[in-house]
């Protein structure tokens, strides 16, 4: 005989308190009466014969203990048939399984559940862990000890996985051996629920949706325009669970604490903090954001790390006859290395890494550059066509958006002269004065380019302080300076939210052990319950009218 759930035998420990309570409850109270004369005349049912009295108490206690024994045996699910059901166990080892909301961790609970399930099935066992590709810590073994060891050695990884590859592997193995597939997971996957994922799989779910967790979900950096070597760092934190709390976000650069900020976190909400960092060191910068919050069940998402590459000086080619004002403006912008080239024919095929500024000229055929800034380009080209006219632009009617607009206040600009152009189809107009485009281009083109219908180095614009800033903003934008230079890999919003993709009650696969439930135990359990009810009724009737 095999017990499929031997832990139910712990119920037998209740025999001790039952016996103690019964002895305490059934022991008659001693009472001294003046004279038994009046009690002697009591009705017969008040007085018990000594023989029945001696028998009744132990007999009743014995029946209760038999009842307990029957219940414990029935719950232990005894079977005469020793099961030998091959089983493929799939263990989710993604980062969320390290959450400690269920026992020591979700992974340990899942391992225990799989172990219990394996014991019921009998074996042989195959253990597969999720991942891309999936792992097979135990290939087809009948040894429970090896299975226990393999489950004990399983550790959560540092990222979330899709369960699909592991389950496909398990299904293909099960198809060959006739095994059943049991998958223990918390349902926090990198993809949404799909019935096809768990088709033919018995899913054992661990963890709860209400676990309180918080973590870093975004860590990204970009360089600040202006060429001062500043970094803007975005650290996003999110919370799961319903409780409102706060999280302390610490930012470290090369291991040195540079900033800390406390962020309020509402239940199931997220919050972002922007840090600005002036980078003085040369070389690559390692940034780390970590948070500390109460009721945090998962440590794996509490920090994120990224590597910001060293800022390299951008090479700028000015294709122009000597323009002292423009050259001085370029020289004042840090982070760039400017060189003037003239005539354009000397460029050959250009420089794919350089930013090219064409002043009143256009790039020759086959010219290559990282990005191109055209200042009042001549004639017709990929940018469009020059119309030939010129007009006086009054700054109060300027419509600014896009590059440079964040640094300029139109009312602070003087009137300046602009030429008439017809932008090429598909070009985006960023600056305009009425219907007349002033700055247009394709920032997502190959290469990206911008065309200016006015000359910033000409009077009176050259006299304004915005002149180099405007150029720097254009160059920054053309060079992709507004884009992130680095983004952390690792914690994801799905991990931090600990949101299970599983439906509330996944369809349970038929358990092979349940088919071995013997009807005899059901009958005995029923008899025990009927007796218990009768005893309770009898006792109640005896003591109350």
């Amino acid at each position, binding site marked *: 005989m095999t017990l499929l759930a031997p832990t139910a035998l712990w119920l037998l420990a209740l025999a001790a308190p039952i016996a103690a309570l019964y002895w305490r409850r*059934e022991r*008659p*109270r*001693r*009472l*001294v*009466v*003046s*004279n*038994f*004369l*009046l*009690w*002697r*005349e*009591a*009705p017969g*049912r*008040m*007085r*018990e014969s*000594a023989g029945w*009295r001696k028998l009744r108490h132990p007999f009743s206690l014995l029946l209760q203990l038999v009842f307990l024994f029957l219940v414990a045996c029935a719950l232990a699910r005894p079977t005469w048939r020793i099961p030998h059901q091959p089983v493929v166990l799939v263990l989710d080892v993604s980062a969320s399984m390290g959450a400690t909301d269920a026992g020591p961790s979700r992974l340990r609970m899942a391992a225990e559940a799989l172990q219990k399930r394996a014991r019921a099935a009998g074996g042989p066992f195959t253990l597969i862990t999720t991942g891309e590709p999936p792992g097979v810590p135990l290939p087809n073994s009948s040894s429970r000890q090896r299975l226990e060891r393999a489950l004990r050695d399983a550790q959560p990884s540092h990222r979330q996985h899709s369960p699909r590859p592991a389950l496909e592997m398990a299904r293909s193995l099960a198809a060959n051996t006739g095994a059943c597939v049991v998958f223990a997971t918390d349902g926090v996957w990198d993809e949404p629920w799909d019935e096809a994922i768990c088709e033919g799989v018995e899913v054992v779910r661990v963890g709860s949706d209400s676990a309180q967790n918080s973590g870093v979900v975004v860590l990204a950096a970009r360089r600040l325009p202006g060429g001062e070597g500043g970094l803007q760092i975005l650290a996003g934190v999110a919370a799961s669970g319903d409780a409102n709390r706060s999280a302390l976000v610490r930012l470290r650069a090369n291991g040195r604490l540079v900033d800390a900020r406390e962020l309020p976190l509402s239940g199931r909400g997220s919050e972002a903090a922007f840090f600005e960092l002036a980078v003085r060191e040369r070389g690559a910068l390692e940034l780390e954001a970590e948070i500390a919050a109460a009721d945090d069940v998962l440590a794996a998402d509490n920090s994120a790390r990224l590597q910001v590459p060293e800022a390299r000086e951008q090479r700028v080619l000015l294709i122009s006859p000597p323009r002292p004002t423009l050259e001085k403006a370029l020289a004042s912008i840090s982070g760039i290395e400017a060189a003037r080239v003239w005539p354009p024919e000397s460029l050959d095929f250009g420089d794919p890494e350089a930013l090219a500024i064409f002043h009143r000229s256009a790039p020759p055929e086959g010219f290559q550059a990282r990005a191109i800034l055209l200042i009042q380009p001549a004639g017709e080209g990929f940018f469009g066509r020059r119309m030939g006219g010129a007009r006086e632009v009054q700054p109060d009617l300027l419509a600014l958006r896009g590059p440079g607009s964040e640094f300029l206040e139109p009312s602070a600009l003087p009137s300046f002269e602009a030429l008439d152009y017809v932008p090429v189809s598909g070009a985006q107009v960023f600056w305009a004065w009425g219907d007349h485009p002033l700055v247009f281009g394709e920032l997502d083109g190959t290469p990206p380019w911008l065309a200016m219908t006015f000359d910033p180095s000409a009077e009176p614009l050259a006299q304004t302080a915005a002149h180099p800033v405007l150029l720097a903003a254009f160059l920054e934008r053309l060079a992709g300076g507004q884009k992130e230079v680095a983004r952390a890999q690792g914690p994801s919003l799905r991990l931090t939210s600990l949101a299970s993709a599983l439906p509330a009650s996944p369809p349970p696969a038929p358990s092979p052990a349940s088919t071995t439930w013997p009807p005899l135990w059901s009958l005995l359990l029923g008899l025990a319950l009927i007796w218990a009810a009768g005893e309770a009724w009898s006792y109640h009737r*005896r*003591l*109350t*009218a």
Partner: protein
Amino acid sequence: MLFNSDLLRRFESARLLARRRARGRAAAERRSPRGEAGVEFGEYRAFVPGDDPRRMDWHAYARNRQLVIRLLAEERDTHVYFLLDCSGSMGAGAPPKFDHARRVLGGLAYIALGQLDRVGFVPLGAGPGLGLAPARGRHRFVELAARLEALASPAGRLGLAESASAWLATRPRAGLVVLLSDGFGVGRDDAADALHRLRCAGHEAALVQVLDAEDLEPPPPGEYEMEDAEGGGHHMVVLDAAARRAFAQRVNNFLAEIESRAVNLGAAFLRTLTHEPPEAALGRALAWQ
């Protein structure tokens, strides 16, 4: 200590109250029913063989043709006997009925001695030599109190009627016999039978029934192993609400029966509970006078 100074002060108050009620009569002035040694005419009684012919009232015979005896009134003191039930049932109760009975007895004796009556004490079932022969004088109270204090805890079974008969066999002089008992004897009518025998022997009789609240109120429902305080062994009783009601009814019947028997026998009756102060029982006992 049974009789402390406070209790004795309360006894004294009860005695003074009794004296005020008896004002107008001389101390110990009671007419003798025997009518042998007096000088003052008392009453007539029908002649029975054996009567002294010298006491025959021939004038009455001449007038009515009936032989009657002249009885003369005699001034004499009264004998008051206190019979205390010392059976095991008197040990039950909180406080024990035995203690309460002894205090009430002491109070009654204190009043009787104050009225110059002769007071005797008979502990029923306590063994020989512990009683006190009738005697007069307030100083006798000290001796009586000492005897009461010296009594051992009550134990054993006692037939009240049988014990009364045994005492009557000592031919005590007629007087007032006060029986202090809880009324529980060998049978339901034991106490009433004892009163009957005392009356038949020519005594005035009084019953002071001492009870405890436990005697009147059945315990809560449950299973009990009951021990008979009079040594009747152990009995298992399962008590439910119906049984409690039945028991309460039997107790009421028993109390009513014993009281009605006492009244029918012409005996004074007093019921006192252990939680009652002794002087309260004494106050009601003064009505006997």
